[in-house]
C-alpha cells in the first residue's frame, strides 16, 4: 500500500504557483473542492487558467477567485450563474474557452488515460469546431479534440482511504473522477478519510494510483444552488 495522506490543505497544495493550469471538479456547486479553493484564495495566486465545468457563483466556489481577479482564463461549458464572471468576460478581462460539457469530460478522461485526443460529434458545424480538424466516420462528422494538460487537479470525494482510493457520492461525482490523474499532481480532499481496507475494493470509483495527495477536508458548506422542493 502506498500512502498518499498529507496533514492539511497547505501541504496538499505545496508547489502551486502563479500562471499554472488547474482542473477543478464539481458541477455547479455540487462536489467542488471547497478546501482547495479557499486555500487558492488565501495564497492569492494570479494568472491562473482553470478547467472547470462551471465558474461558481459570485460569492462561492470559483467565483471567489474570479472576484479577486486571480483567473486569467476559464475553460468551462456553462458559466451562466455568475454576474461578475459575465462582466469580466464581456469587458475582455477574462479569457473564456467554452467547451461542450461532454467534450470537457472526455478531454479530462483522455488526459487521465493517456489518449492524446478524441473524436466527438459535439460542436460539429458550430463555432466550437472552428479551426479544428473534422473527420467523417460512417457518414457522420466528428471534431478532433486534444486531451487537456494541467499542473494540478483539485478533486473532492466523499470517502477516501490512505492509499488514495476514492468513492464519490450521488451527483457530486460528476467531473471529479475524470480529473484524477489528468494533471501532473492530483490533490484530493475528502469528507471522510479512512484506513486502507475499510473501503470495499469492489466499490472504489477511482483507484489510488491516480492520486498523489489526499487529505481530510473540513468546514464543508456544501451550498445548494437551487433549492427546489415539493409539498408533502
Amino acid at each position, binding site marked *: 500500500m502506498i500512502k498518499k495522506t498529507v496533514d492539511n490543505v497547505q501541504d496538499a497544495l505545496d508547489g502551486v504557483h502563479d500562471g499554472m493550469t488547474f482542473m477543478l471538479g464539481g458541477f455547479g456547486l455540487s462536489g467542488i473542492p471547497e478546501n482547495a479553493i479557499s486555500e487558492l484564495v488565501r495564497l492569492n495566486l494570479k494568472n491562473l487558467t482553470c478547467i472547470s465545468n462551471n465558474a461558481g457563483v459570485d460569492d462561492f466556489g470559483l467565483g471567489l477567485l474570479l472576484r479577486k481577479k486571480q483567473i486569467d482564463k476559464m475553460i468551462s461549458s456553462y458559466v451562466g450563474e455568475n454576474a461578475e464572471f459575465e462582466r469580466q468576460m464581456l469587458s475582455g478581462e477574462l479569457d473564456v474557452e467554452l467547451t461542450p460539457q461532454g467534450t470537457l469530460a472526455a478531454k479530462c478522461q483522455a488526459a487521465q488515460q493517456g489518449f492524446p485526443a478524441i473524436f466527438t460529434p459535439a460542436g460539429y458545424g458550430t463555432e466550437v469546431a472552428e479551426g479544428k480538424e473534422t473527420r467523417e466516420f460512417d457518414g457522420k462528422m466528428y471534431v478532433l479534440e486534444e486531451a487537456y494538460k494541467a499542473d494540478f487537479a483539485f478533486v473532492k470525494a466523499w470517502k477516501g482511504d490512505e492509499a488514495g482510493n476514492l468513492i464519490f457520492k450521488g451527483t457530486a461525482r460528476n467531473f471529479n473522477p475524470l480529473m484524477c490523474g489528468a494533471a501532473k499532481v492530483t490533490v484530493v480532499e475528502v469528507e471522510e478519510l479512512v484506513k486502507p481496507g475499510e473501503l470495499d475494493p469492489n466499490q472504489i470509483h477511482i483507484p489510488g494510483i491516480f492520486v498523489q495527495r489526499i487529505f481530510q477536508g473540513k468546514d464543508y458548506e456544501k451550498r445548494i444552488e437551487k433549492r427546489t422542493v*415539493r409539498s408533502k
Partner: protein
Amino acid sequence: MLDKEGIAKRIAKEVKDGFYVNLGIGIPTLVANFVRDDIQVEFQSENGILGMGPFPFEGEEDADLINAGKQTITALPGASFFDSAMSFGMIRGKHVDLTILGAMEVAENGDIANWKIPGKMVKGMGGAMDLVASAENIIVAMMHTNRAGESKLLKRCSLPLTGVGCVTKIVTNLAVLEVTDKGFKLLERAPGISVQEIRDATEGTLIVEGDIPEMQLN
C-alpha cells in the same frame, strides 16, 4: 394557443414506453409531470443520474443530489449515479431515446441555436451541443415567436448554432411541426389556432398538406 404547461403536455405524448429521456431546462423539465403512469420511462440528467425522481420534500434536500439545472432532486428505485464521461457516453452512444430541449431559433433544415447571443448573452452550451449532435430523436419545446413577435422558426438561424440538421420535431404554443427535407411540415394546430395564424408566425418554409388536425392533449 398553448401555455408552457400545454406544450409540455403535448410533448409528453411523444414519450413512449421504454424510453430513456433527457429533459432540458425550462419547458422540457415540465414534461415529466405529464408522462402517462402506465408506461416505463427513465429520466437522465447529464450531470450524472439515471432514474431521476421528483423534487425532494422540504428538509430532505441533498447538495450531492441535483439535476443538470442545479435543482435539488430525488432518485427513484432502480436509479444509478455515474460520472460525466459515462453520462455523455450514454448520450454520444445513442442510448438515450429522446432529447427534449428549448431553443432560441430553429431552422427549416433542422439547425438549432440556443446557447449564445453575441455581445449580449454568453452562458455557455453546457451539454446541449453533445445532446443535439448525438441524439436521433430531438424535440424542441419553445414559443413560436420571440418577445418581439418575430418567428423563431426560420429559413436559417441567425444566432450561433448549437447543432446542425438535428431537430426532428418542434412543439410550440401554436403547432406541432416535423422537420423534413423540404421544410417545416405542419402536423397539428394548437386548440383554436388556424393554419393561417401558424403560417403568419413561421418565417421558414411551411408545408401544409390536407387538413391539419387540432392537437389532442389528453
